Every structure is written in structure tokens, then in C-alpha cells.
């Protein structure tokens, strides 16, 4: 009984405890402002990593374009908040911004999924990369605004003029600015928990088993009567939607999205992939832990100044070797077995 609870809900409890601890420390003034400001990004990268793990680990398709979905969620959520900044109270507006961001990211996930999921392996990966880059390229080129005459959209700033009462929403490379800073650590944790519940629930459901059957052997799954395309689309769209939620948190934390090349390009997608692989492919909870640690790492090494990113790269390589090298995995397994023999009463003291 206790074991079941620990297995099923252990990780949620850990997250809630983490939230409680951080909130207490923060209100006691024991957290530095730097560390406190890292808490929100940690949650949204964790959410994005969960989303990508759903695609890579559960569905079994490599995507290197997930920053694109995050980008769509970020932009649509921010635009909604800008439009309703005056009209709606903060909490309701933020909630609706989530719905808008998630819905649009899901829509794009669905539309992109139709062509993408027909492909396989590296070809699929490169098409997701292509879509991610297209989204980024278009969003940094368009000028978009509303005024009393309606909606205006232009590719060149010289074609873009608004009436005096107009509101510029996307200003080309200057992007979206003035988004209210609605994101907080608490909201981030709530969204993270919801995402985790959703994905875990999916994995335990009939649909989830079907999706994993497709991952393990597509032809066999098809032969048993599983509707392959339908389930693939389901997982991919859901994955995009969760990434969109992470995007909404992003845009309501950073508030100014200028020069998006630096955080929504293929490098950002690859960074998400790093979180997923380091945390364990298919291990949803692992992604959360890996995303949080890897986001913290370079920030905590600021004291190293010029050597910061160099050390970060070395640590990343070493962590990969430690976690994945078959030889080391074997050694680790033996060490754990040895420990187990030495400490017969283990179990409760660890978690």
C-alpha cells in the first residue's frame, strides 16, 4: 500500500515539497534574488522537457523543433495578454492566455503533425527542425498590429502603418514587449504538476499503451488493429500543446521577446533534447530533474567567469558518459548491488 503510493505519487510529493521549501525560503528572505529568479525558468524548461519526452520517449519520434511550439505558445499568449491588459483582471487574463497559447500550439502541432508523422527517423527529425526554423523566421519578420480599422499584417516595416489608436503587437525583430509579468513559481509548479499528471495518466491509459506499442513495433501494432496515424497525431499534438504552455510561462516571465533567434531556434530545441536524453528517454520525471539541474548549472557557475561555458560543456559530456555509457552503467549496477548486500535494511532511508 505504502509502496504503491510512493511509486505513483512519490514524485508529485517531491515537487510539492520542493515548492514548499522554496516558497518558505523565499518568504524568509533566505534566497538570493538570482536564485529566486531562476525558479520560474526552471519550471517552464521542465514542462517543455516533459512535452518533448512525450514525443521522443513515449511516441518514439525524434523532434528537433519543439522550441517552435514553445515560441507559438509564447507569442500567442503574450499577444492575448497585451490585447486584454486593460479589459480583464490579472488572474483570469493569465488563465485565458494559457488556453490561447495551448490551443494555438496544439493547432500547429496538429497541422505540422499531418505531414511530419508520415516520415521516419532522421527525415522526421529534420522536418521538425525545418518547421521550428520556419516559425522562428516568420515571427521575427512580421509586423502585426490592430487599430480601429482592423488587423494589420506586413512583412516590411515601411508597409506597416497603424491609426493613432492602434496597438503594435509584433514589431518585426523587436518582437513583443510589454507583456505583463504574470508568471510566478507557484503557477509554474501548478502547470508542471498538471503536465505530469496528464502525461502519466496517458501512459497508464489504453491510448498510452497503444502509443507505446507503436513506438516499440509499428508494424506489429498496426497488425493488432491499432490506428497508428490517429495515436501518433494524438501524442504529437498533446506534446505541442504542453510545449505551448511552457511558452506562455516564458513570455509572461521574460516580458520582452526581442531577437528570438537567441532562444527559439534549433539550438533551443536541441537544449530541450539534452534535458530529455540526460534525464532518461521515456522517463518523464527524469526530464524534470534533468531540466532543472541543467538550467541551474551554468547559472550557478557564474563565479567562474570566462571559463563558465567551457566547464559546463565538460560537465555535460561527463554526465552523458556517466549516465549512458554501457560500461559505466554496468559498473554502477554492480556497485548498487554491492551496497544492497551491505545494507540489508535499505529502502526507507533513501527517498
Amino acid at each position, binding site marked *: 500500500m505504502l509502496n504503491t503510493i510512493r511509486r505513483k505519487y512519490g514524485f508529485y510529493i517531491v515537487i510539492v515539497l520542493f515548492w514548499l521549501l522554496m516558497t518558505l525560503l523565499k518568504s524568509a528572505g533566505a534566497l538570493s534574488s538570482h536564485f529566486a529568479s531562476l525558479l520560474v525558468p526552471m519550471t517552464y524548461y521542465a514542462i517543455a522537457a516533459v512535452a518533448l519526452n512525450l514525443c*521522443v520517449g513515449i511516441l518514439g519520434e*525524434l523532434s528537433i523543433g519543439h522550441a517552435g511550439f514553445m515560441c507559438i505558445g509564447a507569442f500567442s499568449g503574450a499577444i492575448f495578454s497585451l490585447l486584454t491588459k486593460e479589459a480583464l483582471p490579472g488572474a483570469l487574463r493569465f488563465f485565458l492566455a494559457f488556453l490561447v497559447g495551448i490551443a494555438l500550439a496544439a493547432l500547429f502541432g496538429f497541422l505540422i503533425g499531418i*505531414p511530419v508523422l*508520415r*516520415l*521516419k527517423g*532522421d*527525415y522526421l*527529425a*529534420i*522536418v521538425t*527542425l*525545418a*518547421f521550428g*526554423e*520556419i516559425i522562428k*523566421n*516568420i515571427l521575427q*519578420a512580421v509586423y502585426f498590429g490592430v487599430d480601429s480599422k482592423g488587423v494589420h499584417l506586413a*512583412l*516590411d516595416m515601411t508597409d506597416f502603418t497603424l491609426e493613432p489608436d492602434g496597438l503594435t503587437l509584433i514589431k518585426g525583430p523587436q518582437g513583443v514587449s510589454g507583456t505583463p509579468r504574470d508568471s510566478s513559481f507557484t503557477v509554474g509548479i501548478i502547470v508542471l504538476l498538471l503536465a505530469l499528471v496528464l502525461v502519466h495518466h496517458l501512459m497508464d491509459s489504453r491510448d498510452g499503451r497503444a502509443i507505446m506499442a507503436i513506438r516499440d*513495433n509499428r*508494424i*506489429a501494432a498496426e497488425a493488432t488493429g491499432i490506428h497508428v496515424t490517429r495515436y501518433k497525431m494524438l501524442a504529437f499534438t498533446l506534446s505541442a500543446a504542453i510545449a505551448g504552455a511552457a511558452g506562455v510561462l516564458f513570455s509572461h516571465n521574460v516580458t520582452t521577446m526581442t531577437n528570438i533567434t537567441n532562444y527559439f531556434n*534549433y*539550438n533551443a530545441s*536541441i537544449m530541450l*533534447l*539534452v534535458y530529455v*536524453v*540526460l534525464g532518461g*528517454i521515456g522517463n518523464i520525471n527524469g526530464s524534470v530533474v534533468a531540466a532543472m539541474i541543467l538550467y541551474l548549472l551554468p547559472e550557478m557557475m557564474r563565479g567562474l567567469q*570566462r*571559463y563558465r*561555458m*567551457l566547464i*559546463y*560543456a*565538460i560537465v*555535460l*559530456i561527463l554526465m*552523458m*558518459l556517466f*549516465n*549512458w*555509457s*554501457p*560500461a*559505466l552503467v554496468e559498473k554502477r549496477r554492480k556497485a548498487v548491488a554491492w551496497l544492497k548486500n551491505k545494507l540489508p535494511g535499505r529502502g526507507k532511508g533513501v527517498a
Partner: protein
Amino acid sequence: MSFLNYLINGLSLGSVYAIIALGYTMVYGIAKMLNFAHGDIIMVGSYIVYSAMSMAGMHPAIAILIAMVGCMVLGVVTERVAYRPLRGASSSLAVLITAIGVSYLLQNIALLVFGADTKAFTSVINWKGITLFDGELQIRGTTIITIAVGLLVLFGLQAFIHRTKSGQAMLAVAQDRGAATLCGIDVNKTIAITFAIGSSLAAVAGVLFCSTYPTITPYIGSMPGIKAFVAAVFGGIGSIPGAMIGGLTLGVIEILSRTYISSQLSEAIVFAILIVVLLVKPTGLLGKRVMEKV
């Protein structure tokens, strides 16, 4: 006439993509890994040539030779230290992430050694090129030489792979590692050779890349790296002629779309065309369809 000029400009850009894609596809096709650090090996090669020529005053040919050897050593060492331990890991993605780590590492080492400032590269090709129709049409010397070197590398690689024993071993390893081992092929050695050749080709590509676009920073490798990946997939994964054709096509599409459609959206258009091509021909231009087995 201006269309022809744009076409030639496209081939010029494409030839650079092609030469990078050749080395990339070699590693990619045989070691079966997306080597995200390939672009950074190009960067290292360029810096070696830069240092040897501009700082030590060496002859270009010697500088290139040093860079090839340097990159070869670098490629083999990274393979041994960072990639080989992960061979046989439960997912092929593990080695891909390590490659990203290697890429960051090389960039940051270059940043510390050479500084962030842009440096101008002295082109190793001083030939101005061919001018036709009273200067209306111009083909740059770098373009002609890059394409020529590309073809040389293409035929050289084809001959090496199909005519030599180690080349045949590479094909075998690419097809089925387990079976290759059973046939007595040393998989580790074969892959090390692949990295050695691929990395020294990266040095050559770096020299040609920097001769065409003569500035160097620690980050010049990342974009060409990703474009070479696109070109390699475009041409068909693992197909060496495919990489050449994929690179050239990519360059031409990029330039023509920038010319005739939109200069802001040229990447979006290039990637959209790539998607359409892959949907029509899901294994790239020259890729082979592999039958799926249950």
C-alpha cells in the same frame, strides 16, 4: 543575364554547403550519428590555417596540411574519448547529445584562445575567376575551385569506399554492425578511420568556406553544420553523391528564393521547399528505400 548571375551565386554558396556536407555525410552514413560537432571541427581547421598563415607566415599548402592533420587528430580523439564509450548505449540519441557537448567545448576553447573578435581570413585562392560577356557574367575563382575540390573529394571517397578494403569495411559497418563484427571487421577501428577522414575533410571544407566568406569567429561552424545536415538529408542520408547534389541544390534554392521571393523569409522558404521535397521523396533525392522488416 541577371538570372544567370544569381544562379552562379547560388552555385557558389551551394558549393560551400556541398563540400561541408561531404565530410558530414561520411560520418553520418557510416557511424550513424548526427555529428553536431562537425561544424566546429571546420571552425578549428579554419583557425589552424589562419594561425599558420597569418601569424606564423607559412605557405598556404603547408598550413592546410597542418590543419588536416590537426583536425584528423582532433576527430579521432573526440571519437575515442566522447563517442566510443557510448557505442552500444540503449539509445542512439546519447551520442548525439555528447556531440553537442563537444561542440560547446570546441567553441568555448576557441573563444578563450582566439577571443571573440572577428578575424579576417586571408583567402588561399587568389584567382579572380572567369568573366564573360564583357563583365556581365562573373564566376568567382573560389566557386570554381570549391566545386572542383568537391568533385575530387566525391570521386576520391567513392573510389576509397568501393575499391579499398577499409572502404568495404565501412560499407559493412554502415549496413549491419553485428554482422560486420562476425565477418571479422574491427568496428571500432573502422569508425575511427571514418572520423579521421571526415575530420580532415572538415579542415579542407573550412579552408574553402573561409576563403569564400573570409571572416572567422568561434561560432562560424554552427550554421554551416546545420545546413550541411540539411543538405545531407536533402540528398539522401549516407549517399555521397547525394550530399554533393543536396548541397548545390540547397545553395541555389536559398539564393533564388532570396532574389525572387523575399530576403527576410529566405530561410523559411528554403525549409518549406525541403519539407515538400521530403514529402514527395521521403528518403531524399538519391536515398535508397530500405524495406522494413518486422
